[in-house]
């Protein structure tokens, strides 16, 4: 079984590229906020208790904060 990586699995400082969004309902919100397939995301930090996460999006360099369970619906390429 191929390993599935999601934005939740990134290490702090690591960058990945969005492949697709798993959860259709969550996807609508994520798409609006700019989480499009092909966009790069970087995990810039975690809250002190490990959750939520801070994701920096693409070139625009803006930061989203989302829960780990939500980040787990963002599938990464490769």
């Amino acid at each position: 079984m191929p390993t599935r990586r999601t934005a939740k699995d990134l290490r702090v400082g690591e960058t990945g590229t969005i492949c697709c969004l798993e959860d259709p309902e969550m996807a609508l919100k994520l798409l609006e906020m700019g989480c499009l397939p092909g966009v790069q995301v970087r995990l810039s930090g975690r809250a002190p208790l490990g959750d939520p996460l801070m994701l920096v999006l693409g070139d625009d360099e803006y930061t989203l904060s989302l829960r780990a369970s939500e980040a787990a619906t963002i599938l990464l390429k490769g």
Partner: protein
Amino acid sequence: MAAPVIDSAPFTGAATEATAARQEGAGGRLTRIALIGNPNSGKTSLFNQLTGLNQKVGNFPGVTVDRKSGFAQLTHTQRAEIVDLPGTYSLYPKSLDEKVITDLLYDKESKGYPDFVVVTVDASNLRRSLLLFSQLADLELPAILALNMTDVAERHGVRIDVRALEQELGVPIIPMNARNGSGVVALKIVMAQRLAAPPVRFWEPSDELLPLVRQIRYYFNLHNDYLALHYAQQFRQIGFLSADDKAHIQELVQQYKFDSTAQQAAETIARYGRINEILLETVTVVRTEKREPVSNRIDKVLTHRVAGYLIFLGILFLLFQAIFAWAQYPMDWIEQGISALSAVIQDNFSGPLVRLLTEGVLAGLGGVLIFIPQIALLFAFLAVLEETGYMARVTFLMDKLMRPFGLSGKSVVPLISGLACAVPAIMGARTIESWKDRMITIFVTPLMSCSARIPVYTVLVALVVPDRAVLGFLNLRGVALMALYLLGFFTALASAWVLKTILKARERSYFIMEFPVYKWPRWKNVGITIWQKVKAFVWQAGQVIVAISVVLWVLASYGPGTTQDQAEARVRQAYQAQPAPAAVGQASAQGKAADDELQRRVAAARLESSYAGLFGRTLEPVIRPLGFDWKIGIALLTSFAAREVFVGTMSTIYSVGQDADLGTVQEKLAAERDEQGQPFFTPARAFSLLVFYVFAMQCMSTLAVTYRETKSWRWPLAQLLYMTGLAYAMALLVYQVLK
């Protein structure tokens, strides 16, 4: 970048007659302009720049708060109404907050339908901002694009060809900086022109969707396909559609097997595709150097696992320090000023009207004005935390901690705002997408000690807690106050946990949000917030408080028939038959003291047999186990409508017939004696009363706003019964233990 005022002529000259008529306003009304944009795009700053203090905002029921509106002087001769809408990322609302926008824009017949919109766009984040703009343009709303934060974009190396972008988007674009106001004049000039609907379409429903879309469009007589598609998407939530209309759309949607989610996703991706093409031709990014943005570096500290929480606690501590220590000085001045004024009037005039003025109106007014320093400081603090972007980090830090209690990180903002006033705090809960999280937050927010409890706390704590230092730097009274606040907070958490186990979730709870970049607060925005809150408090709460004070004074000064005179006669008789020890002496000084004693007894007897006394007496059996007497009973009844009335009431009740030299409420309460001649306010009584005020639901405004926000009487009723029951039980416990 110069503002291309002249370039915008092509867009403004081509106004249709219909638009022109609306510009002048049907029936001579003002042009109505709506401000719309992403959260943190500088929309509120622009609103403040345009309208200054000419804003209609209310935080009390009956006044609409969904849409802040104000007036702007565009040119010497032209005024316009500006409506500030909540921030949103798209026209597909995900929370109630955003639904306000679609309700307004879907219905051309609605009273608030704007003549055109000003879309605030963050220049440093154009792609995402243009998503919303493209949807608005496809609804054929005349629009101006306010290109905000151009300075930030430039620092990021983003170069925007404004003229080319204007051509691509088909609307006038005004580069500006809402923070310092540059570009606002140019924007006003364009706003004063007649605007036509934008000619460019960014996305249109595909051929498969057209049969459905057209049927809806013709059925409702809509002006465009895209609007009809929105009806198909969101008919369930559109407030102005009748049940029949909704059923009709429901049938069509089923008939054509319309997949709402897939269509929305496809539309969003297609729009971004089109926007990317436009940006490719109009924007160049010159990355000077790849270095970590300042905000991210600040975040490393402010959301650090140890430092983050310590800083948050420190800020809360500073907040309490400000409210309880710094605010004390101006509060003392106000209090002394009122007593001095009252004394001057009483020394120079006499008669029932003068007593009504000093013991009724002035005593009540003092109880209102004394709040101003604390309310101003509290709202200043909250405004600064919000403005700087720190509040978003607080929700990030607290989310995991709040979730076990059925709350989300987003509940922290309403809970903290609840320290100021539950009414705006409960409305602030609209940003919470999940129904369950939101209901729980609304339900427990009134347990946070709001500013209306401050005077009750301050007066009673000062009465029974000595003014002493503990641990060298803390003040014992400050510690007592902090304890009361914590009591409210932990009870809110516990109640939330109970509710979490009772309520069933209707949908998933989201937490996705954008972190705003750290900014210095703009003092103008902070100032406007303070001004609005203080004004709303003084006018709206003040009217109630002064009215109740006057009514109360009348009730306390007069009784049914001649019962008061009879009571006085009985006291005089008993007094003459059994002279009090003080009256036994022969010296004139003692005679004077005896006279005073008689005066006091007469006053007490008259108050007891007044209407208010009868009221309190009826209530006394119920509240006696809590240590309260009929005088406190009167205060409880009057503060049922609004708890801040308590101090005013106490002040009024205890002024009736008391020595005019006893200026402040605190002195009056301290002078109160029980039957044995001991001070009435023992620690047991004072703490019982304090605990009662921590828990009791004594605020009509909160109940009304809960009703409005939950659209059901069950929630405010549950709040009322739960909180008041809790207050009674806890006060009973405290008094019986400490007695």
